[in-house]
């Protein structure tokens, strides 16, 4: 079922750009839901797992749902659904706004995670062939490599901190701030110093010695890419027209 597995990363970037724009422009819940369902389908066909994505994003999802609820409650226009005395707690328009926010952001998140179904290397090459300057692409690449390391370092530090008897639940507010300082400062300073060392080692290897970098690996648009881009264009234009 991995119809789009070999899709060019540039096609995916195109899809994400178009769909995210549409998600911002559309107001109707129906059209936003259609975008969401289609994005899930594309994600699945690219070899990603919709449920896996939701699971990884569960913490952010709680936050989004929370914001949506707050937004529903604080919108006072529309027909009231729940009232206490003369105060309108929930109105139909508030519910609409909350749902709109939730689905809109979900579309953006789900469609962006389609990019993650390409390998780092392919994505880099795709961006390069889109004429994005190498320095910027390289920065993204490094960030992608460093973040997991940083997370690992951070998790281990939290464990080490607990082992040395510092329990965030038990210490007072002022000491808690100090504890956070001990946690965050070394990770931050170390990554700054590490990047300085990396800059030196890149210099030594002649990074940017030549004006243009050539690459053994070139991405080529296949028929499936063409079909994918055309059908997503038809799909989005169609939605725009019948809107």
């Amino acid at each position, binding site marked *: 079922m991995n119809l789009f597995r070999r899709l060019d990363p540039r096609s995916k970037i195109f899809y994400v750009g178009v769909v995210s724009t549409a998600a911002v422009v559309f107001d109707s819940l129906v059209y936003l839901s259609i975008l969401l369902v289609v994005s899930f389908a594309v994600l699945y066909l690219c070899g990603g797992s919709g449920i896996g994505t939701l699971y990884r994003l569960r913490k952010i999802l709680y936050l989004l749902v929370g914001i949506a609820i707050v937004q529903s409650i604080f919108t006072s226009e529309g027909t009231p659904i729940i009232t206490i005395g003369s105060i309108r707690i929930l109105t139909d328009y508030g519910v609409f706004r909350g749902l709109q926010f939730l689905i809109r952001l979900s579309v953006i998140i789900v469609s962006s995670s389609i990019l993650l179904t390409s390998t780092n290397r392919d994505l880099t090459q795709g961006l390069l062939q889109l004429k994005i300057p190498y320095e910027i692409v390289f920065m993204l690449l490094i960030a992608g490599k460093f973040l997991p390391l940083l997370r690992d*370092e951070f998790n*281990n*530090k939290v*464990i*080490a*901190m*607990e*082992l*040395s*008897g*510092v*329990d965030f639940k038990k*210490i007072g507010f002022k*000491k808690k701030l*100090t*504890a956070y300082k*001990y*946690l965050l*400062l*070394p990770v931050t*300073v*170390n990554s700054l*110093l590490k990047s300085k060392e990396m800059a030196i080692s890149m210099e030594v290897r002649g990074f940017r010695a030549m004006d243009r970098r050539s690459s053994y690996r070139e991405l080529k648009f296949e028929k499936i890419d063409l079909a994918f881009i055309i059908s997503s264009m038809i799909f989005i234009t169609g939605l725009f027209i019948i809107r």
Partner: protein
Amino acid sequence: MDDKFISLESVSFSYKKGKMVFKDFSLSLDRNSISIILGENGSGKTTLTKLIMGILSPQKGEIFIEGKSNQGVSLGEMGKSIGYLFQNPDHQIFGSSVMEQLTWSSSLVSNDNENYHEKAKYLLKEFGIENIKDTYPFYLSMGEKRILAIASVMMRDVKYLIFDEPTSSLDSNREEVLVNMLLNLKQRGIGALVITHDYDFSKRIGQRIIHLEDGRIEDELI
């Protein structure tokens, strides 16, 4: 069976994305002796220590510390009875200077100011790192970082020590200090589990040498 400090009973463990590291694995460690684990890279030595500390949980089997299962014991409580040295010293270095690294956690949890400063000074001297006490830890050499991490574990009074490769990148003087310190602690009833690749070091301090291979152990007679 009273002198068993740690015992693992038919423990099975594998990482989320990875092969089985331990299958039906059992091991007991004595309270008052120093046990050594030798084994190739990737044989599961670090994983074993993390299982004991409760940093990782086994999929099957149970691990007992002083006869009590370590499931549900908080890391904070575990840290009170066992001092743990990470294989990567960076994980447990928090201070912005060598001196601060030795005192930061005590300054957060205890009010006994005098006492822990004295102890920190003693350890700095003992391990020969007085001259770098104001240095930012990032700039230390690997061996110096290791010694600093060892010293910070020694800051606390515990019943048992688990050291993951304490001898890697140590010079012979520092190693000598470590040998004396571990033997001294053993005299006072504090045992240890030490992972190392240094066979001579093992012979000098160990009462039991355990070879770990493919999740199985083989004891070497001493």
